[in-house]
């Protein structure tokens, strides 16, 4: 049985992004060794994902994270629309 070098990555969606994807959480599969940019591409490839903006804020846990962050097993991400609290 060969090892499959693919990570399932859970991504939370909020507000308008959740509305566009019709889901508040999705799971995308990226190659082991991939980065946040690959996660974002994975979400954008889902139905409705093409309407997401080119650049989005991404959180890793409770912290913002850069697109070049290398994804580890069990990492959880969130795509954040522009904040509009207050």
């Amino acid at each position: 049985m060969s090892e499959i070098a693919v990570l399932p990555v859970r991504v939370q969606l909020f507000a308008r992004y959740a509305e566009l994807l019709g889901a508040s959480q999705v799971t995308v599969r990226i190659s082991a060794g991939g980065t946040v940019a690959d996660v974002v591409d994975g979400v954008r490839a889902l139905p409705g994902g093409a309407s997401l903006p080119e650049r989005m804020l991404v959180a890793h846990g409770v912290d913002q994270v850069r697109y070049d962050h290398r994804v580890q097993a069990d990492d959880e991400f969130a795509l954040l629309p522009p904040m509009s609290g207050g």
Partner: protein
Amino acid sequence: MAHLTSYPIQLDALIHAVLSPSRGGVATFLGMVRDQHAGRSVVELGYEAYGPMAEAECARIVAEAETRWPVRVAVQHRVGTLVIGDTAVAIAAAGAHRDEAFEACRYVIEELKRRVPIWKRERYSDGSEAWVDPTAPGGTVPAMTRAPE
């Protein structure tokens, strides 16, 4: 005190959380739901948050303010459905003197609006809805209208 709440915000509770006999100046800010935005008549708002990160980010902002000025700060943001006149956000900053209280209070609301993952959806008098988005032309992006409940 949690920074996010589904219940009406009590300003008195925030003020009491920051008071002490050595603090003589208390500056507060209340953000209330207005009846209009960008020229449209608002009837209702919904606030949605990424809870764990919003709590963490509020805590970071409070810690920054308390490091930068000799103050104690409390902040709460409401989530869920709000109507005109409801308090969406409240901040209280107390220091020995008013300068630091005002500056810290102002800092917290500016950083909160910029950094805390909370999103506002407006419903207008014509039944349409939009997401507030400070980066969008006109400040909003149309939302899919929810089916009547």
